[in-house]
């Protein structure tokens, strides 16, 4: 591992202070410095700085933040929406940021709103973040009190209001168009594309930028230290540092901010000060590299660098050889004793339960996958079930390759197929062993059917 010091960009306060969420600590540790500097620049200069940094969006898709901004349709009314609806299993980085450093999030939001000249910003937070909602609202109030929000911010002539909006408990509202529907007061269901980008037609039909919480948290540092300083970290397209949420069978499950690309999965899972190795000294069986919807990796992938393209263009396990994704940066480690069939079922069930129900393949397909997986897990699988699984997955994500082709409106449906196809491809013998393994004469449990009256 390299010896040069890598700065903590988004977790500097969180890792150093117990009271990192307070406005006092924030102001005492350079709070609003980035904002003041941004306001002394033109919006175009701020955008250019972010473009220089090559900051990739931290929500999952990994699109260049500055590029996204530049795609915004020119219109008098523009909105900035912060996506804090982090609800995927094993993803908890935004959770930490909103609770640990809410003022940083608010500062980054104001900088971004200034850069795109938004008239109004919304911070949409997962409804279950009770403490986070309180702290972000406090941070917004504190920003108003300190002149960082409202009319004529810091005498710059720029004005902005931020509304903090809690979600109502739906994973799908993390999909940006579903989030916008929810924000408009409607049922959270993804919009059809085209129009492809909210930057062209978003909230209330106006051009809207939707950015992730962590993306915003990077802004104060980038403006204070310059985009070039950020771009000097990492390599290739993946610059700067990034928080990885490490969980599963490791000794030290936690969020870690590490330099991109210069760190590998092996570093993250095994290094002291990071994951610290597999719990109980066991062997690694497989791991999820980037959130519940990412195709799995095996031990052969450990030395891949933590970089967008490095993971995306690697040699993955799915048919067609497509790689996987860093996604939301959550890594789930499974040791040698893991029941991968059950693990795949639990993930598939999550997606079935969180399907919004808008389009047929996802609404019907994910719940069917859930039912078939459940009977296999219970030992009541039938001959042909594995073929059936593959075919239903193929109907939701045609070709079963990664990145997925879709018959659905959004990525939720194909996401359900990924863990199943990963497990089935990597460990077919475990599935085959499981099918029909229940003792003769035992009865299958009543299937879980949603919507039973």
């Amino acid at each position, binding site marked *: 591992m390299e010896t040069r010091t890598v700065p903590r960009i988004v977790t500097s306060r969180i890792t150093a202070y117990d009271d990192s969420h307070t406005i006092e600590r924030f102001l005492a540790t350079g709070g609003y410095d980035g904002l003041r500097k941004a306001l002394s620049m033109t919006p175009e200069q701020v955008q250019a700085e972010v473009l220089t940094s090559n900051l990739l969006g931290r929500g999952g898709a990994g699109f260049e933040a500055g590029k996204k901004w530049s795609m915004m349709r020119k219109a008098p009314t523009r909105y900035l929406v912060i996506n804090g609806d982090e609800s995927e299993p094993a993803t908890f980085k935004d959770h930490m940021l909103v609770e640990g450093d809410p003022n940083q999030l608010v500062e980054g939001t104001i900088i971004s709103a200034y850069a795109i000249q938004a008239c109004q910003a919304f911070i949409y937070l997962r409804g279950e973040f009770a403490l986070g909602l309180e702290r972000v609202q406090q941070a917004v109030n504190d920003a108003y009190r300190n002149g960082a929000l409202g009319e004529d911010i810091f005498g710059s002539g720029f004005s902005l209001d931020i509304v903090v909006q809690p979600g109502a408990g739906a994973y799908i509202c993390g999909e940006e168009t579903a989030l916008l529907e929810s924000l408009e007061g409607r049922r959270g269901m993804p919009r059809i594309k085209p129009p492809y980008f909210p930057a062209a037609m978003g909230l209330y039909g106006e051009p809207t930028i939707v950015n992730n919480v962590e993306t915003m948290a990077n802004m104060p540092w980038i403006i204070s230290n310059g985009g070039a300083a950020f771009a000097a970290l990492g390599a290739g397209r993946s610059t700067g540092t990034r928080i990885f949420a490490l969980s599963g069978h490791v000794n030290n499950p936690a969020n870690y901010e590490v330099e991109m690309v210069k760190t590998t999965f092996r570093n993250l899972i095994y290094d002291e000060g990071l994951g610290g190795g597999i719990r109980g000294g066991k062997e690694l069986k497989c791991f999820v590299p980037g959130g519940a919807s990412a195709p799995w990796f095996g031990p052969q992938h450990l030395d891949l660098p933590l970089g967008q393209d490095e993971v995306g263009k690697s040699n993955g396990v799915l048919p067609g050889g497509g790689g996987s994704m860093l996604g939301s940066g959550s890594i789930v480690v499974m040791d040698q004793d893991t029941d991968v069939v059950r693990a795949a079922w639990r993930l598939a069930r999550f997606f079935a339960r969180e399907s919004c129900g808008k389009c047929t393949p996802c609404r019907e397909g*994910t719940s069917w996958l859930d039912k078939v997986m459940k009977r296999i897990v219970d030992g009541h699988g039938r001959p042909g079930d594995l073929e059936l699984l593959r075919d239903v997955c193929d*109907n939701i994500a045609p070709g079963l390759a990664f990145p997925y082709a879709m018959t*659905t409106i959004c990525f939720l449906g194909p996401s359900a197929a990924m863990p199943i196809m990963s497990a089935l491809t990597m460990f077919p013998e475990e599935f085959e062993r499981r099918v029909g393994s229940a003792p003769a004469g035992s009865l299958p449990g009543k299937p879980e059917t949603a919507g039973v009256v």
Partner: protein
Amino acid sequence: MPTKPTVETFTITVDGREVEAEKGEMIIAAAERGGTYIPRFCWHPRMKPVGMCRMCVVDVKGPRGWGLVPACYVPVGPNMEVNTQSPRVKKAQDGILELLLINHPLDCPVCDKGGECPLQDHTLAFGPGETRMAEEKRHFEKPIPISDLVLLDRERCIMCARCTRFADEVAGDPFIQIIDRGNGSQINVFPDEPFASYFSGNTVQICPVGALTASPYRFKARPWDLDQVESTCTVCAVGCRVALQSSSNRLTRMLGLDSEPVNHGWLCDKGRFSIDAVNSENRLSTPLVRRDGELVEASWGEALDAAAAGLRAARDLHGPSTLAVLGGARLADEDAYAWAKLAKGVLGTDNVDCQMGDGLPAEVVLGLPRATIEDATWADTVILLAPDLKEELPVLHLRLREAARDHGVAIIELSSRATGLTVDAKASLRHQPGWAPAVMAALLAEGDPTESVAGVAPEALQRARRLLAPDRSVVVVLGRGSLAESAEPTVQAALALHRARPSATFLPALRRGNVNGALELGLAPGLLPGATSLADGATRFAEAWGSVPGARGLDTTAALAEAADGRLHGLVLLGADPLTDHPDRWLARRGLSGAGFVVAVDAFRTPSVEQADVVLPVAIWGERPGTTTNIEGRVTRLGQKVVPPGVAWADWMVASELAFALDADLGLESLAGIATEIERLAPSRAGLTPARIDDRAARDGLVVPLATADAPPVPGEIEANDDPGVAAVQGHVETGAPAGVGPDTGGEPGGPVAAPSSAPAPARVRPPAPSPAAGVKTDAYKLRLVSSRTLYDAGTIVQESGALAKLAATPALHVHPSDINRFSLGDGGLVRVTSSRSVATLTVMADPTLPRGACWLAFNLGSPGAADLIDANEPITDLAVESA
């Protein structure tokens, strides 16, 4: 400025075939026009795409090769290549159908949709042969009523959201929603808030499975047992095109047909479900003659002889001007012509009126330049000087709602009460009842108003004035906003606008099925068929008919007043029920009892029929062919699907036979013969031959007068209305109005009609001159009554249609909350109201949409009702109120 967009077209390739596609069109629509059907469930051509079912995925060649895209929301592009048959498409469609079927119950044998079910059809055409689903299917309680008319079976639902989108986008009644999520998603209503929409039946029609069923049709028939004919709904005057279906000589179901210029496939529930009235047990099936004070069954011969004898005696003793023929707005065009010929040519009376004192003067309706529905939906500004269209002409309401939302048409509403379109109106001018002319004058005056006019704030007037800038096209929807005031304020407001703005066109909001056809074909005082005035048409019709009345006769109100005074000796009611429909029941009652001899030609035993001396039973819609004419003057074919009950005849046959009994011969022996005679004699119908209207190209009907007699107009296009002010005036009639009033179109009234050579040039009716009208000052100690109709009422059609009968509301007197306080009434309490006619006790309901000092009472919700309080001879109706 909302103009109907001109369409740019380009070529795309669908399965190797070149298809002409329109810019902005979705692949699915372009392919279908080109002959390639792409399977779909959620897509509906009259609603925005939603992309939920995914059945319509097709292969499209893009910059990165072929890819699956949904055809329902991806618009066509130039040179686009589409493959609907690739193995990948087949696999995807197979997969989607399997997924739709895994939880769909196999209750097709008892499902109303079985046999006409898109899911069934698509499964046969595109789907897998068997299921691989081994688990228990999704279960819901089935079915649950979501309104009085619609039941929902959530197990059958495939979540296409057609119903919720219709309710929200089209009807504006978003009472049904998707609730829960994922596999448990279901359509449902909010607790205690039923899907009480006037348009709920459309959701049943567009449901692609049997999830939504209508209680009147449920389990009544199988689709393959139904016979079908195209027709036009005549329950109101919009003229929606329908498919009329029957089984075993009973009308079983009515479905909306997608007529581009008229109804876009939609129907209101009153129209859709009123077929039960045709099937009713209470239909008149045999002639009746009064003997010893009782109506007893008689043969046609006896009844016609009795009718002829009574009418002849009255005419011979007292003269033809003591006869009157009232009603006829429910007749087909041919019936109306036959009765006009009988009344004016044989009986010799001009006391003929198809309106019941609740409409507008015929000269105003026929004389003002006419607009089509399409004109209104693409105008810059639409002025509503009319009753609540949602209650009286529901599908016109839908069209204007769409126009306001999707075309940006600005609506100005002049009314004394909120209507269904108030939320979509750019300016709602809520004025004191009876003051419409003053408000109109303020809109047309020079300079911005600075003071309130009849309760309308100057800001609202200014806002409306801006929407009437000279460069904006204006269409007026014109009807009687309130039956508690005379027609005069409405007429004067309309005439003032016409004089100030000759280019403005008018769409009459008259309600009864064929009132427009009846007026045009001469069932109005002072008029002859073809929108011809008595003076102008006298020579021509005297020649054809033998004679015509010498002087203008009485309208319904005046005729009833004559009868009440004992000066009317013979009265024919053509499907008319003055006791229910005339605004002044006191007058109607005295008129009917005072009339010497009454012949009722009707299909039901209405209260007025009970007063008749001779009753002649007739066929109604669904039982006789012919044509009908809607608010635009659009003539469409009526279809016959069942035979009338008993010995009932078509109205024209009754006219013809009654003429024989009066020793006259109308010379009318067949519908085609009548139609040919109308075409020959009625100037406004020149060129409208039976062959022309029967032509498939005229499926959406033809607007009269025809643009030219030779070239058939393209259906669905605006007809010769590039300059509405000119085109609509042409071919219309002129009354004895003073010269110089209205647009002067010169001496030769030729018009665009290349009239048959045998016919003289058509004369024209012109609207009367406006006269300065002042509103009547309000009495501070009284409330001024506004009265209008509700869709579901105590009328015959609704009450004879089982499913609708219970939907009529209980009448209540709506009063502004501040007036409730002022008169110490108490919301929900009883109030005693006194008019110059009578006293009534009513329940009070707070209604903040009324102007202060006004109150509203539904006209048609039974007794005591507004008709008991209104004096037709008074300009307005003021009520003294006290807590009862």
